[in-house]
């Protein structure tokens, strides 16, 4: 039975991976396939993957046993440490996998028409296949290596899709910014992985994330360390405070990719990880507290900011963030079921909303009938505030809490100064001149 299950999981994981390899290698030899070929390939890949999920679901239902650990061998092992390819299947991961694969399938169908005759057609679907693989790996990750791989694929494809229109300057600049924040996230996750290996002896998430096993294995201190690193990784990926500045900037790619990443799946990947790591979080009350505070304050921040944004995509990005951070708070409070339902509902609903974002003019035309234009129905509480506060709040929200400026001042400049000083010192030692100086 386990073999059958392993096989059906492979049926859902392999197609996107294969499609990424085919598209990637054909572009590597400068022979990008035609639109028709890409379209057909992606269609079959998505159908196969959804079928794989359906099979897996049916099998999991047919053989109830709660959890299934699926081993696909080891990458390598040294002494007592080993890097294993292990997947972990339970109700939560199965549901998230099904959600992710379905939404990816829908968005792929959307994109295949939306991107017609776009020069980067094949490139888009390469990145989209990578994304699908990444999110599926995150859903099923049973070892921290697999999780890390999925996390990286997700981050890479995300940054490259933000910079999809690379003939213009701002998508590339914003893609780079997203990439930078994601690197912090990746670094945190990598450190967490090292710590897990150090403490547990393997990267098995089951040992870390399950309440029965972990108690004996992890000390309070190491649990706190690992949990806080994981939370840092999540905070970057889900754009929690103080990292929220990249989220509106990520709205540079084609609408469907923005929708599936920042409305539906990528922003929720962090929430999902926290949900999986709940047992660990329970052992680290400090981190839970921090998560609650960060979650709630991000929620308040994001909902205020969303209220002043005058373009559809920014306002939806922050509206989405307010729900994501609410989900994080729910997890911190231990309301796992609500959080999971909230996560899935929000992903579906926000995806639809973002895909229909360009329709907003028509929505307005059709609903503005009659006496009251919608703008007068909104923000009533706001109009009761004293004028000075209202002014302050509006500019604060319009400028997105001045986060970019704050980070520029408190992180980027000091960092550049330190690096600059080190560089100068280095040159002093080696006697090199600054490159490019005239």
């Amino acid at each position: 039975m386990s073999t059958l299950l392993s096989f059906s999981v492979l049926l859902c994981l392999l197609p996107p991976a294969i499609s990424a390899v085919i598209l990637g290698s054909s572009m590597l030899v400068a022979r990008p396939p035609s639109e028709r070929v890409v379209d057909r390939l992606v269609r079959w890949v998505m159908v196969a993957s959804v079928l794989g999920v359906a099979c897996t679901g049916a099998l999991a239902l047919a053989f109830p046993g709660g959890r299934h650990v699926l081993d696909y061998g080891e990458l390598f092992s040294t002494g007592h440490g080993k890097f294993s390819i292990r997947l972990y299947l339970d109700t939560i991961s199965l549901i998230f996998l099904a959600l992710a694969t379905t939404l990816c399938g829908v968005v792929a169908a959307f994109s295949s028409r939306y991107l017609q005759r776009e020069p980067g057609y094949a490139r888009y679907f390469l990145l989209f296949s990578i994304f699908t693989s990444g999110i599926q790996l995150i859903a099923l990750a049973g070892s921290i290596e697999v999780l890390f791989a999925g996390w990286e694929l997700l981050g890479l494809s995300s940054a490259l899709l933000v910079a999809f229109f690379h003939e213009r300057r701002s998508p590339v600049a914003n893609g780079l910014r997203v990439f930078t924040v994601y690197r912090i996230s990746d670094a945190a996750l990598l450190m967490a992985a090292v710590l897990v290996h150090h403490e547990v002896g393997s990267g098995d998430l089951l040992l870390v994330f399950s309440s029965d096993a972990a108690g004996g294995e992890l000390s309070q201190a190491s649990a706190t360390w690992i949990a806080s690193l994981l939370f840092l990784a999540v905070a970057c990926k889900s754009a929690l405070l103080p990292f929220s500045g990249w989220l509106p900037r990520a709205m540079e790619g084609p609408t469907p990719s923005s929708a599936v990443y920042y409305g539906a799946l990528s922003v929720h990947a962090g929430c999902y990880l926290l949900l999986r790591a709940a047992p660990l979080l329970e052992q680290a009350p400090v981190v839970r507290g921090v998560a609650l505070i960060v979650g709630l304050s991000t929620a308040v921040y994001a909902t205020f900011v969303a209220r002043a944004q005058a373009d559809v995509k920014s306002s939806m990005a922050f509206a989405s963030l307010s729900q994501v951070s609410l989900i994080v708070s729910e997890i911190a409070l231990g309301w796992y079921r609500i959080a999971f339902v909230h996560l899935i509902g929000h992903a579906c609903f926000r995806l639809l909303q973002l895909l229909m974002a360009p329709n907003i003019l028509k929505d307005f035309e059709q609903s503005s009938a009659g006496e009251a234009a919608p703008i007068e129905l909104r923000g009533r509480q706001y109009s009761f505030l004293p004028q000075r506060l209202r002014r302050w709040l509006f500019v604060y929200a319009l400028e997105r809490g001045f986060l970019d400026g704050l980070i520029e001042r408190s992180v980027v400049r000091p960092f550049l100064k330190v690096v600059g000083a080190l560089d100068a010192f280095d040159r002093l030692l080696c006697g090199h001149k600054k490159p490019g100086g005239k």
Partner: protein
Amino acid sequence: MPSQVVDRRTLLQCIAGFARLLPTQGPIGVFVHHNPLHAFEDSPFESAVLEAKQLFGFEPYWPHARYIQEYSAGRITLEDIREVIGRDLGSAGDEELLEGLSRRVLLERLCAHGINEARGAELKWLLEETDALKEYRKDILSSSQELKRRLRPSEREVQLNQLWQLCLKHAGEGEVAKPTNPRPERLRDIILERSGVDTDEWVHGVLIRFISAYLDQGIAYWPMPERGRGIWHCFTQLFAQPGLPGFEPWFVSARRRIRQFIEFDPADALIAVLEELGYASSGNFYEENSAAPRLAADQVEGGREQLFGADALATGAELSIEPSSASHSELEAVSVRAGHVAFLQLDTEPPWSVFLRSSLFALSGWAGMVHQVEKHRDCLPYVTVQAALLEFLAVRMVLELGALEYAGREILGYTGPLAGLEEEKRAEGPSLLAPEERAWLTFNASQICGLESAVLSTISPEKFIEFEREILQFTDERRRWVMHRAFELRFRKRAYSALLQHTPPESPEPGYQLLACIDDREESLRRHLEEVDPHVETYGYAGFFGVAMYFHEADHARPMARCPAPVHPEHIIREAPEHHEGAEEIAHRAADLVRTGGRWSGMTLVRGALLSLFGSVALIPLIFRVLFPGMRNRTLHRHPVEIAHEPEVLLEGEESAQAGVHEGYSLDEMVEVVSGVLLGAGMTRLSPLVVVLGHTATSVNNPHQSAYACGACGGMRGGANARVFAAMANRAAVRERLSEVGINIPEDTWFIGGEHDTTRDSVAFYDVEALPAARRAQFAEVREKLETALERNAQERARRFPRVSGLSPAEARAHVEGRSADLAQPRPEYNHATNALAVIGRRARTRGLFLDRRAFLVSYDPENDAGGAILAKLMSAAVPVAAGINLEYLFGTIDNRGHGSGTKLPHNVASLLGVMNGAQSDLLTGLWAQTVEIHEPVRLSVVVEAERSVVERLIQTQPGLRRLVVNQWIFLAVLDPSSSRLWEYADGGFHAYEAEQPLPKVGPSSAAWYQGKSGYLPFASIIRPGAELEAQA
């Protein structure tokens, strides 16, 4: 106030001049096609596009390589190039430059083959890393190609190297300036070049967020505070307030300036900014630089007319500055002084004005929107705010001052007035073409012309220099201009030739008539209907059918103008609002609440959370709408659509007290409208049934939807106009009065109004229940025929879409209906993408001619219009509209970045007024890449069936037409009403055209010609089998 070197009045005049150059696209809900270079229409086309390049960097033509592509595809032929060059050169063309090579042949070859004008690093790469010096170009003459092939590779290399050395040897002599980027350098550009820091990124971030929230029509949940008192007041109040944390470092510098200028009025603030930057502080600087020659000035040849003429200031006077910023008397003074701004000629524009202008145009889309709101405050759809370009510019410049100061001081370490940077830059002088760069041109030209090094080495250096000069003078731009005209010439020849040779089929006595819009998209529908049913007679009239009105739809918030954009309607027609009672009323209100409430709940925190808990339900519409877009369609709409219980249109109204706009039409006015249309279209013998078709377009997820609707109805649905027109023509009182003036509408004739949806290819009819019993059977029959024609029309359209082929008519219609409801469809239809031609004349001349949806068809009967009065009216209405559409497509295709809005995929609706690219950008105006991708940028050819003398007189007497024709924004040709002769207007006279190759004849229907083909098709005569038999008999 310190002593002002830039005086206030001059400043305001300048801004009025800038305003005229801004894009005129207002809120996107009403998309009006127009010439993006409207401000340049007083100059000839050629100098206008070059001037626009100099001012804004817009590309004047396609890249040369793109024309060569068309050349290889046969859309341009060598004869066309030859003809254009022959006309340009005259007798100078025959002069022999080298032995066996005349000037004409050299230029022809350069045009047809092109040279990649590589410079600097690119050239180095070409020379070192490619086979440029080892292999001959692939496109050299085929005869010499044979010759070359017989050489061994090493020999070829030796030959080519000799040639290269020879070119290089002669290249050193004589200095030629490198063509520079003609746009004015801004301080920001200089700082960017020196330090890599882009101050615009800083400024635009704040400015775009601010102005989009200021103008916002309802996307933001909170309304912006302080916006009642103008842009400047709002901005200074909001951004100077204390207690805002963590501004980016540059903004700290800008905020100090905002606080400093908070008490100033915007004009004074602008002057202060200029002084701070050093533009106005010393008289010397000003004097010196205003006389300095501009580097790129010699790029524009001739026609460098005064840019801001007297009528520019007439427009400028509309630039009403808010009372808060300038007194009205001051503004009046400005308009009185109109015409005294000679210094605003390009050469002598002072540096501060160049600086202001180029800074303003860095965000031309937003600036244009501000100006539109200023000019027509009622153009804002939901929330009225006041805006003034002057204030927007002041905000921008204060921010820019802060950014430039910070960047100059902190990053560049530059002390002293920043305007000095510009002076330094100018002092560097123009850079010259390097010898290699010049040799590369002659090297390529020699290959193209088949000149061997052996030949070249024998000629004298003087000859060689002359040869080189000839090539250098024939710049890339000139080559493209030749190719562009050759491209247009090919199209015109094809079109004229088709019109000359086409013999329309004998048509039977018409059983009914169809009056449609002149729109190019109706050409195919009319043709198909005539093919389906020869008993129809079709007419084309501008789609508002003379009914220039405001129309208030029952379920819309406010009335909208339904007439061509420049017309201001004087009538308002309302649909009677539907009355809901009891439970129905409650249900109606609830539905409204759900619609508005549902959307906002998604955006807020608590309501959003509650909604999200049940959000999984969204999966159902998500899957169905994306995977099966056609399905929703089929269940919701079934055609033909019946608008059975349309609320009654209130037609007859009393004179309203409201100035300018009256409720309804009086009897006299109705008679005028109906007679105008019937006489104009030449509908003198009316059939028992007359179908009047307006048109509209349906799509989803498409912010540009309005661009697809009827241009003659101001970008709105055209059905209402058809409906109102039919209702007028059906009135007994109107008919009675018409018969008095000699227009007889038979008693049993009935007009019925309808609306053609050009995306879905469906037709809906209005007021069907009012149809007299006697006409019902015929109407049912007509409707059936029309459905068949619509299906065929859908099939003809579908062949152009990507990845669509081999559909039957019925399948094609299902397909286009699916497109109209598909969330993922960026091309619901191709709109006017195929327009290129306008024919004003009797349908009898074009009936049965396959015009490939390329022609606006205006019905006109020259036999009823001896004096040309009707023609004058028709042309003054139709030609500017068609030319506007055509030129918008032309420039949107040639330079989609400059004049268009790029690909639709990352578009982001801002303020409900327009779209931005991705997260944040300038407001994009113009056409998007998906709608111009199949467009061929050729200027409109207008063919008028009339006497030459009549048209000649019209050109003389109508300034609007004259401007377009004489300045060559359109081509005008005359088709003789009584014979097969055609003359084209050029250089002040008419020149006869002869038919070229014979016109293809195919049958039995258009499908035989287009089936299985996806590109543009040659024009052809469609011969019905019946007609052929008759001809044989």
